[in-house]
Structure formats: C-alpha cells, structure tokens
C-alpha cells in the first residue's frame, strides 16, 4: 500500500502537475553530466573493493584466529587461512564462559526488547504521524531530544534502583530500560506519515471502528514492512549492547557480549578461545545480515535521514 495508487490517479493530474511547474515536457538528459546518472568507472570499483575487503577482513580473521592455537595467531607471521582447531576452541569457550547460558539470555533479552519496541513504537509512531492532539509537536521534539542523552549519564542511579527493586544482576535490569526507543518512534512516524493515507483511517471510522480497531486492522498491516526493518535494527542493537549489560549483569548470568568481555578479562586469556567466543557471538547476526541485508540497508537509508 502506497500513498499514490497509480491505478486510480487520473491521467489529467499528471499533465496539470507539469503545467503548474510551468515547464515544457522535459527531454531526458541534455548532457550526461548529472552526477548520479554516470556509470561508475574502474576507479570506483577499485575503491569499493578496497573498502569492502577492509570491511570483511576482520570478520574473516576472527574465523581464522578461532580455528588456530594461540601460538599460531601470535606467531611472527600470522596465519591467513583457517586451521583445524576450531572445534576445540569453540568447546573451550563454551566451557569457560557460561556461553550456553549467555546464548539463552541474549535470545531472551533481544527478543523481548524487539517485540516490546515494535509494539510501543508502532503505536506511538502512529499517534505522532496521524493523530491530532495537544502538544504533539513538543512531545515529538522531546522524543528526538532523548536520542542525545548517553546512557552513561544515568547508570549509577539505575544500578542502585535495580538493586532496590531486586533486579540486580537479573535480565529484567537490561530489558526494561530498553523497552522503547526514541529512534523507533521516529522511524515508525516517518514511515506512517507517507505510507498511511488518511482515507484509509477515515474509511475505518465510517465503518464504526474505534481507535484500537483501526490500529489493529489498518495501521498494523500498512506498517508491516517498516516493522520488519525496525525489528531487525532493534534486534541487532539489543544483541550487541555492551555498556549497560556489562555493568548490570554478573558472571553467572551474562549476555553473550558480557561473557565475551569476561572471557578476555580472564587471568591469562587464550586468544584463540576468545576469538572462538567472538565468533559464536557474531555468527548469528551475520547470518541474519546475509539473509536480510538488503532490508536492513534500505531501513537505515530510509529511517535515519528525513528530519
């Protein structure tokens, strides 16, 4: 569902639009000078290839290091192809760092944060995009302003609060502060502003639907593509979050990132095992990324700009 449906848009509209702009019908390109119409030259491909290798190599080398021994990694000529020690390292990482528990915890945390963010941000985004109410502009500004506050500023009381409530070291202390996101509200608002025509809401009202009903049967279906993207972005972020979980959780009840931090802080860490841990924590997201890369790319491009 898009804002303009090509089928119903009458033909004369397009003509009059051109007339309004007071221009003769445009010839295509006068001169192949406009920047984006150019084909990329060999230099562009070369530069992109260099950057691409730079992007991917550290990930590849994580795999290499995870499949070697510590001595091999730290040799004067570091290895550039994977070795045969992967299984051993994965097992060692698994045993040394509560990785099993960490995976379960990370999935719980990321999934609940993602679901909650999707639910609350879609509702709020819809309200900000299509409903009229007193203080809408000011409240939206307030939402965006919260984006600029680093978590560092509130971790000390947050830590004390969590221990007060009895959530100290518990997953709740990581989940609850992140149930909503300002970015999510903004993202959904931007999408619904364009994608949800007032006619649809109006039609629902004529049919006697109350607001919740409209959200359920009109807004949610329209918002679905954006929710997919926001869901993936939120999941990636929740999965990778480090600062607050590292402070809030303990060794016995870590998320993957926390476990990874502790693995490296061990008394004499074996780097190949640390890398195996890094591989375990990164691999699921890379798989998500390979499958949904296109949507995530599109999501970042559509969400972050318009302001």
């Amino acid at each position, binding site marked *: 569902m898009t804002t303009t449906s090509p089928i119903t848009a009458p033909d004369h509209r397009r003509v009059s639009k051109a007339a309004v702009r007071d221009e003769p019908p445009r010839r295509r390109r*006068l*001169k192949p000078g*406009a*920047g*984006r119409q*150019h*084909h*990329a030259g060999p230099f562009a491909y070369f*530069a992109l290839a260099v950057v691409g290798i730079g*992007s*991917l190599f*550290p*990930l590849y080398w994580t795999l290499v290091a995870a499949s070697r021994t510590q001595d091999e*990694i730290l040799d004067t000529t*570091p290895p550039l192809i994977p070795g045969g020690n992967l299984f051993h390292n994965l097992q060692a990482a698994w045993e040394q760092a509560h990785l099993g528990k960490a995976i379960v915890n990370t999935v719980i945390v990321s999934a609940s944060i993602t679901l909650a963010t999707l639910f*609350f941000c879609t*509702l709020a985004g*819809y309200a900000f995009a299509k*409903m009229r*109410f007193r203080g809408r502009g000011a409240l939206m500004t307030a939402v965006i302003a919260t984006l*600029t506050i680093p978590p*560092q*500023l*509130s971790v*000390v*009381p*947050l*830590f*004390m*609060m969590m221990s007060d409530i009895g959530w100290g070291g518990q997953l709740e202390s990581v989940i609850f502060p992140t*149930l*909503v996101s300002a970015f999510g*509200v903004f993202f959904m608002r931007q999408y619904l502003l364009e994608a949800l025509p*007032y*006619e649809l*809401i*109006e*039609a*629902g*009202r*004529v049919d006697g639907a109350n*607001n919740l009903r409209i959200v359920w049967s009109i807004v949610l279906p329209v918002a679905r593509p954006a929710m997919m993207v926001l869901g993936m972005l939120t999941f990636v972020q929740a*999965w*990778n979050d*480090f600062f607050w979980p590292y*402070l809030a959780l303990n060794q016995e009840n870590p998320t993957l*990132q926390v476990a990874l*931090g502790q693995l490296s802080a061990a*008394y004499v860490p074996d780097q190949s095992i640390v*890398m195996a841990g*890094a591989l375990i*924590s990164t691999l699921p*997201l890379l798989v998500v990324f390979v499958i949904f*890369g296109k949507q995530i*790319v599109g999501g*970042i*491009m559509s969400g*972050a*700009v318009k*302001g």
Partner: protein
Amino acid sequence: MATTTPTRGAHGSRPGRRAPKPMTPGRQAWRSRLWRFDDKASPYAYIAPFFLVFGAFGLYPLVYTGWIALHKVEMTGLDQMEWVGWENFSTILQDSEFWTAVTNTFVIGVISTVPQLMVALGLAHLLNYKLRASTFWRTVILTPYATSVASAALVFALVFRADGGLLNWVLGFFGFGETNWVNGHWTSNIAIAVIVIWRWTGYNTLIYLAAMQAVPSDLYEAASLDGASRWQQFRNVTIPALRPTILFTIVISTIGSMQLFGEPLLLEGGTNGAQGGTEHQYETLSIYLYNYGWNLGHLGTAAAVAWAMLVLLLLIAAINWLIGRLGRKTAA
C-alpha cells in the same frame, strides 16, 4: 471499503465524523461520549509507554545522578548515602587522570569522526553512481555494523598487538619497525579510532547515500548546463544539499564518541583495560566512570563523573550549534 463517501476535513480524522446510527437518545449520548473519550485519550495512551519508560529509566536517573554525586555511596552498601557536598566533584577535578580521560575522549572523538565522515561522504558519492551489484556493495560496507563492540575490539586487539600483531607484520613489509600500539598515547588512541571507524563508516555512508538520492536531479542538470565539472557539482551541489545530513551525522558521531567504552576496555582486557592502559594512555570518560564506580566501588564519585560528562556534552552541543550557524551564514 467505505459505505458512504466521508466528508473529509482538512486533515482527516476529526471526531464526530462517523455515520450516525439510529439509536435511543440516551444510549447515543453515552456512546458519543465514549467515542469522544476514545479520540481524546487514545493518542496519549499510545505515546504513554515511551514517556513512562523513559521517565522511569532515563530522566529520573539522570536527575537523581546529580543528587548521588553530592553523596558518598559505596558499592558495598548501596543503601547508605552520606552527604559530602561538592567533595566528589573536587576529587575528580583535581585528578589528573580525569583530565587525561577528557583529552583522550576528545582526541579519539576527533580522529575517529573526521576521517570517518569524510570517507563516508566519498563512498556515498561512489555508491551514487550507476553501479553493478549496488545492493551487494552496500551490504558489504554495512557488515561491520552487525558486529558487536566486544567482538570488534577483541579482533582489533590482536591486529594491534605489539609482538605477533597483524598490523606490525604488514608494516614490516614496508620496512617499518615494530610499534607498541597500545603503549603510546597517540598510537593507542589511533587504534581505538580505527575500531570506531571500521564499525561506523558504512552506517554513515548509507545515511549520506540516502540524502544524495533525495537531491533533485534538476540541480545537477542545471549545474552541468552551466559547465560545472563533476568535482564542481559535488562541491557546489551535493555538499550544500547534504548540509543538514552532515550536521546530523556529526552530532550523532560526537555523542557516540562521548560513550566509547567497550573499545578501550577490551583493547588489552584485564586490569589494564579497566583503567585505560598502564598510564591511562587510552582511558576515556566512560572507562573513568566505570573504574570509579564498578572497579573501585565509589558510586558517588562515578555519579559526579556522569555530571561532568553532561556538562561536556552541553558544551559540545553549543559548539556544534555555533559551527552550524556559522556554516549557514557563510553559505548564504
């Protein structure tokens, strides 16, 4: 879908536009009051969760931090707060380590943000050409974004190792001697900046690319008619059109660099990481806060650090704003 054509208000959904239904007067009044309540309350109900959660876990702690900063609070007894006034603040302000952390945060912020955004701008320009497999390139460039701070920092820790590090090995080919990256002030800051640049360049590239694609092609056409070269078009059409986006990325990156924590913490790991190196050579403000609060257990002092960060952030915001204003003025 609609049974009757609705009379549309200027902007759609207004109360009292529903098709009337035959009903007994009393019932109807009650229903319409219910409708009106639904219309009035719903928007607030939909945005309430955000403000409730933010209020409870964002705003309230932020203000409360200021109160804690005036107390002595130890990790060992979280419920005992002892009033000490400005003592925490004077402690950190007289601590040379604090000023090292401020300097490091600033230096790393600059040497990561500036090259990162410039490279991103150039890359976005390349990606804006007609390109084979453009989705592939975009995805590849964004891949580091899917990596966690922890994994990235740990891999780069190996790359930057003094003995047996990948980077020194590569540099050896070009005849450079071994550099102890982590030990030097500048070199360790560069190492951290590289991790930041690696993770975030792709993200910023895509933001710029989206903004570039929104530039109307008429502008390029007009420029090329006037005989502007491709560089001149980039300089005089693309960059001005991207000005708001560039400002946005500068703000976001600046806030991000204020928060650098995982990168320095895991560059060496262990106790060295927790204090930002043996000489605090790569200690950032977040590490400083963590060290005071969670390593040494003085939460009151850590809260004072948080407030110092807030002041710095406001300062940076003011500078950003001034530069933005200046930029607009010179452009006009």
